[in-house]
C-alpha cells in the first residue's frame, strides 16, 4: 500500500490542469437541455477531442490516451475543479464506446467511434419503454429482419438528450415468440431515419432533457446491429455494468459539491447554525464524499492489478445518489427562504446553482436502475439472500 501519486501521475495532473486553464470556457455554457446549449456542448466536445482530452481512457489509436483508471480519476478531479462543461455525449463515450470496443466489428468501430469522439454523433439511449422500466426484460418494441434491414416498430421513452441527439442505441425484440431477456437485439439507429418521431418530455425544470421516441416501420441496416441477433441482453448488461461502474460517477463531482457546501455553510453560518442538524449534515457530506473517493481509488487499484468488479459495485449507485440528494437538501436548508428562487429571480442573490442541482439530484435514485432494484441486486447477488 502506498497512498501517494507517482511523479508520472503528478505530471499528468499538471498537464490536464494547464490545458483546462487555457482552454475551458471562462463562462458556463448554457444548459445542454436547450438547443443553443446543446450546440455549445457539442462544440466543446470537439475542442476536448482536438486536445486529445475527450476520451482519455480510450486507446491512443482511437484518439485517446490509453489512461488507466487512476489517471482517469485524476483527469476527472481536474475537470471538475476547473468547472469544465458537463459531457453532452456521455451516453456515447462512457457507455456505448466501451461496449462497441468489446462487441463491435472493426467496421463498426471505425464508423462510430471517431464521430462519437468528435461530438459529430451525439448518442441517446433507447432502453426504457412505457411498459418496461425497472423491468427491462419486458421490452415489446420489435425489429423484424427483412433481407438486410431491420424493420422497427414500437416506442421508447425516458431517452436522455434524445431531443437533439443524432443516434440512438436501443434494445428491440427480434424474435416475436420470445419472452423476457431472450430474443432481444442491440441495434444502433440514426434518429433522422424516416418513420421516427421524437417527442420531447419536459423534465422537473421544464426543459426537454429527455424524450419519447416512436418507431413506425423504421428501416435500419443490419450492419447497425451490435453483437449477435438475439444476444442483446448480454450486450446491454455490459453497458449497464459500465454505467454502474467507475466511469460515469466520479468522486470528483461529489467532492466538489461537498466543498461548495462547506463554503455555503461558512458564508451563512449565523443563520445556518441555528439548526444543529445542518452542521451535522455538512460534516456528513464531507465524510461520505471522501469515503466515496477512497473506495473508488481502492477499487480502481484492485482492478488495475487484475481484480474483477463484483456485485459490490451495485452499492455505488445507491451511495452516490443518496449523497447527492442529501448534500443538495442541506444546501436548500441553508438557503432558507431563498432556496425556492430561480437563479435569475431578482431576489435570488447568492443562491448559485443549488436549486438546479437539487432538482437534478431527484433523478439520481431513479435512473440507471432504481435504488430499489439496486437493493434487490445487492441482497440477492452480493449477500446471497433468496429470490
Amino acid at each position: 500500500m502506498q497512498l501517494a501519486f507517482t511523479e508520472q501521475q503528478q505530471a499528468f495532473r499538471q498537464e490536464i490542469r494547464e490545458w483546462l486553464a487555457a482552454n475551458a470556457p471562462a463562462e458556463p455554457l448554457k444548459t445542454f437541455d436547450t438547443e443553443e446549449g446543446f450546440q455549445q456542448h457539442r462544440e466543446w466536445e470537439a475542442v476536448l477531442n482536438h486536445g486529445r482530452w475527450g476520451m482519455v481512457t480510450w486507446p491512443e489509436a482511437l484518439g485517446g490516451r490509453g489512461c488507466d483508471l487512476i489517471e482517469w480519476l485524476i483527469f476527472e478531479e481536474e475537470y471538475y475543479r476547473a468547472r469544465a462543461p458537463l459531457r453532452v455525449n456521455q451516453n456515447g463515450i462512457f457507455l456505448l464506446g466501451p461496449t462497441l470496443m468489446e462487441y463491435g466489428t472493426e467496421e463498426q468501430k471505425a464508423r462510430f467511434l471517431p464521430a462519437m469522439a468528435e461530438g459529430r454523433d451525439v448518442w441517446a439511449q433507447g432502453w426504457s419503454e412505457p411498459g418496461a422500466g425497472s423491468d427491462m426484460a419486458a421490452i415489446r418494441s420489435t425489429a423484424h429482419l427483412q433481407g438486410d434491414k431491420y424493420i422497427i416498430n414500437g416506442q421508447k421513452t425516458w431517452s436522455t438528450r434524445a431531443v437533439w441527439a443524432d443516434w440512438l442505441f436501443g434494445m428491440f425484440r427480434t424474435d416475436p415468440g420470445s419472452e423476457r431477456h431472450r430474443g432481444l437485439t442491440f441495434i444502433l439507429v440514426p434518429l433522422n431515419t424516416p418513420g421516427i418521431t421524437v417527442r420531447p418530455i419536459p423534465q422537473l425544470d421544464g426543459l426537454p432533457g429527455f424524450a419519447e421516441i416512436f418507431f413506425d416501420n423504421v428501416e435500419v441496416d443490419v450492419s447497425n446491429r451490435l453483437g449477435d441477433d438475439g444476444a442483446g441482453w448480454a450486450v446491454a448488461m455490459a453497458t449497464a455494468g459500465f454505467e454502474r461502474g467507475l466511469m460515469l460517477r466520479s468522486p470528483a463531482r461529489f467532492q466538489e459539491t461537498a466543498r461548495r457546501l462547506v463554503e455555503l455553510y461558512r458564508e451563512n453560518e449565523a443563520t445556518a447554525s441555528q439548526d444543529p442538524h445542518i452542521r451535522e449534515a455538512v460534516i456528513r457530506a464531507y465524510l461520505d464524499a471522501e469515503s466515496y473517493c477512497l473506495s473508488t481509488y481502492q477499487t480502481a487499484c484492485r482492478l488495475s492489478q487484475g481484480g474483477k468488479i463484483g456485485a459490490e459495485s451495485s452499492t455505488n449507485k445507491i451511495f452516490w445518489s443518496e449523497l447527492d440528494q442529501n448534500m443538495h437538501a442541506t444546501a436548500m436548508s441553508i438557503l432558507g427562504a431563498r432556496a425556492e428562487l430561480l437563479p435569475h429571480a431578482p431576489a435570488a442573490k447568492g443562491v448559485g446553482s443549488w436549486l438546479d442541482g437539487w432538482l437534478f439530484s431527484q433523478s439520481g435514485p431513479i435512473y440507471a436502475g432504481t435504488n430499489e432494484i439496486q437493493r434487490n441486486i445487492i441482497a440477492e447477488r452480493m449477500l446471497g439472500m433468496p429470490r
Partner: protein
Amino acid sequence: MDFTFSEDQLLFQDSVRGFLVNEITPERLRAGWDTDTGRDPALWQQLAEMGLTGLTVPEEHGGLGMDAVDFVLLAQECGYVALPEPLVNHALVAVPLLQDLGGELAAHWLPLAASGEARVIVALEQNLLAEDAHVADLLLLERGGEWFALTQGQFSCEHSESVDPGRRLFTVTVQAGATPVATGAAAAGLRAASLNRGALGCAAQALGLAQRMIDLSVQYTAERKQFGKPIGSFQAVKHHMANVAVRLEYAKAPVHRAAFEVAENAAGASLAVAQAKLMACEAANLAAKNSIQVHGAMGYTWEVDLHIFMKKAWALANTWGDAGWHKQQVATAIFADGAALGAGATFQ
C-alpha cells in the same frame, strides 16, 4: 498510488480468520463470560504462537516488525469473532506506545510482549474506564496529562460491568508515589497517537462486527419461514440488509486509509482516523439495528448469538473517542480557513 493489500497480507488475514472462526465460537465466548477473568491464557498462547502478539514488535525485540497496515485486516477478523483477548489493544496501541516511550522500559517489555509472556494494555483518561486492566502485565496509563507504566500490584482495579459480557472494564487507582514515564508536551503527543491507534482498532473491529451481523442475519432469514417462504425473500427484509451492505462497503476504504496514515505517522492521521471510526461504527450500529429487526423476537433473546456482536458494536462506538469527539475533529479540519477540500484534495 497503490491502495491494495499485498498477497502476503491477504493470505495472513485468511489464515487468521480460519483460526479465529474455528476457535472463537459463540459457545466458547459464552463460557468465558462466567469465568473469573473472562480471559483465556491458553487462547492468548495460541495467538502468540501464530505471531500475533509480536506482529508489531520490531524484529530486534523478537517480533515481526509489521505495522498498522499489516494489522488492520487482522483487527477486522478479531471483530468478526468478537475476540475477548486484548490483542488489538496490545498489538496496535500498546506495542507502538512502548516503542515511542523507548529506553529501558521498551527494551525490557517489547520482547515479553512479542512472545506473549506479557499482555501490555493502554488506558486513556478519555476512555473513562480501563479495558482489561485486570489481566495487564504492564498497564500504560494516561492520567492527568502524564503517563504511568504500572505492573500488577502498583494499581488497583474496580470492575464496572458492561452490557457486553465480553468486555471487562475497570476503574484504576494508582498507588501513591508512582513516577510518570512521560509528562508535558511529550505525554500529550503520546496521548494523541494512542487515541488514533485505539480508534483505528475500534473502526477495524467494527467492520468485522458489521460483516458478522450481516452473515448471521442472511443465514437466519434464509431459514426462517413465514407465509410459506423464507423471510429473506421479502423485499422489506432484503432492503434492510442491503442498506447495511452499502454503508459497510464505503466504510472499508476509510479504515484502510487510516491504517496507512497511522503507520506513516502522517500529519493527517487524526482526521483519517476520525473519518474511519465514524464511518465504521455507524455501519456497525446500522448493522445492529437492522439485524435485530430482521431477526424479529429471536433477536431480542439472550439465546440467539446476534447480541454478542451487537453489544460489542454499541460499546466500540463510544470508546476511544465517541462520535461527537471524532465529528469535532472533522469539523475543526473542514471549517478551517484554507482547508484542503474538494476534488483532488484527498491524497494531498
